[in-house]
């Protein structure tokens, strides 16, 4: 693991989850920034420096999975951990086969989140 913690973007339309996750990652020394939608993230200057995405599956506009696909198609496949409050086996299978690092169901534990981020950013 590198000594400089990676920069992480949290994309979730739910303000509570977004702020909480951002706060937790900052408490662990990550550079973390929250976005309310995929569009907000895509239009930000964070696109290039983000080394890991934590994105909600169900969001108005572009979904977490669609965002991952879009970034990969554009040649910028940011390692992504999807989070969801609507567990769906089909979406999970589709996401993992598309190359998403992990699919976490809310509420997830700190360890699950950290392990996923570590696995996502290791490569």
């Amino acid at each position: 693991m590198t000594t400089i913690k990676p920069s992480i973007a949290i994309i979730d339309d739910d303000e509570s989850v977004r702020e909480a996750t951002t706060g937790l990652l900052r408490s662990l020394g990550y550079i973390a920034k929250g976005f309310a939608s995929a569009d907000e993230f895509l239009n930000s200057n964070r696109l290039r420096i983000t080394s890991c995405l934590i994105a909600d599956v169900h969001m108005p506009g572009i979904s977490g999975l669609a965002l991952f696909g879009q970034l990969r198609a554009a040649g910028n496949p940011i390692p992504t951990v999807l989070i969801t409050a609507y567990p769906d086996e089909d979406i999970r299978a589709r996401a993992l086969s598309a190359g998403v690092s992990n699919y976490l169901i809310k509420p997830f534990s700190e360890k699950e989140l950290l392990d996923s981020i570590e696995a996502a950013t290791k490569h």
Partner: protein
Amino acid sequence: MQFRPRLQTMTQYLLPLMAIVLVAAIFVADTITDLEIAVPVFYTAVILISVRFCSRRGLVLVGLGCVALTLLSDFLTPESSSSETGIINTIISILAIIATTALVLRIDSAERAVYDARAQLAHVARVTALGELTASIAHEVNQPIAATVINGNASLRWLSADPPNLDEARVAIERIVKDANRAADVVGRVRKLARRAPAQKVLCDVNSVISEIITLTATELRKQYIALESSLSGDLEPIFADPVQLQQVMLNLILNSIDAMQGMPEGGRFLFIGSTKADSGGILVTVRDSGVGFEQAALDHIFDAFYTTKSGGMGLGLTVTRSIIEAHAGRIWVEPNNPRGAIFRFTLPPVTDEVKMPRAASLANKA
């Protein structure tokens, strides 16, 4: 549920007065006249009037009182009562009084059974409607719980840092409190709707009833890509209504619109919810969608029980909706939306001076 006509001031005082006057008249006629007819039979009219304002026990007492007065009359006029006709008349009268009391009590309990069954049906319909929201309600509760777990972890991290970052920990803990309240609010909203409580009319603000249901269904609307626009008039007077039943009406209409818009393209699902003053005084609520709408033939039947255009529907939602509105002395109707969809509108009457009086209000709730 309140399907019985409410007690009005008139029936509160006028009917008992009528009954007393009638009792006195019959008693006097029976005692002082010597007619060859069974005058006390007319006591049955007293019983029929009493059913409008008496409890079951009261009715039994009225019946017994009538029998006692019949016997008292005979006692006061021994010469005419001892005749054969007199005795037969007395027996006929007493039998008539007892039979009438018994029948009235049976009819009353049958009516009660109907009201109870309707209330149960309304409750079942309400819980069924809530059932359609299960996934989004679970989501609604899950989000703040997820945030609470994460914030808890974050505050532990901030506290165990060296030196501890108390400011950051405080922020995380404040979020925990906020999220716990948010989850409790969701549960509270659902529990209020799921509870089987007797109908209770209170002065209530229609806009807050509507807002509550909009909040409850917001996640579902978002999940279904439905754009919601609401326009709630700021100068509505409170009305006299059962807030849970009005919420049920709003929930049914919104769920109906959600279903109607399921087949529409994602950019074409619009729901409008509005409240304004009605021309007749009172309040007019509008729920307009851009769904499939109804065929002209269906428009005449959509409020009928077991009439449904949905594959999985029971055909009870709109029936219950209408009976609730009617129990509130309101009116509900549907018209086609342009270019497509349906517009449901209902009115609720303004508060009359009568029900503003707390006594009348509490009596009305017992009806």
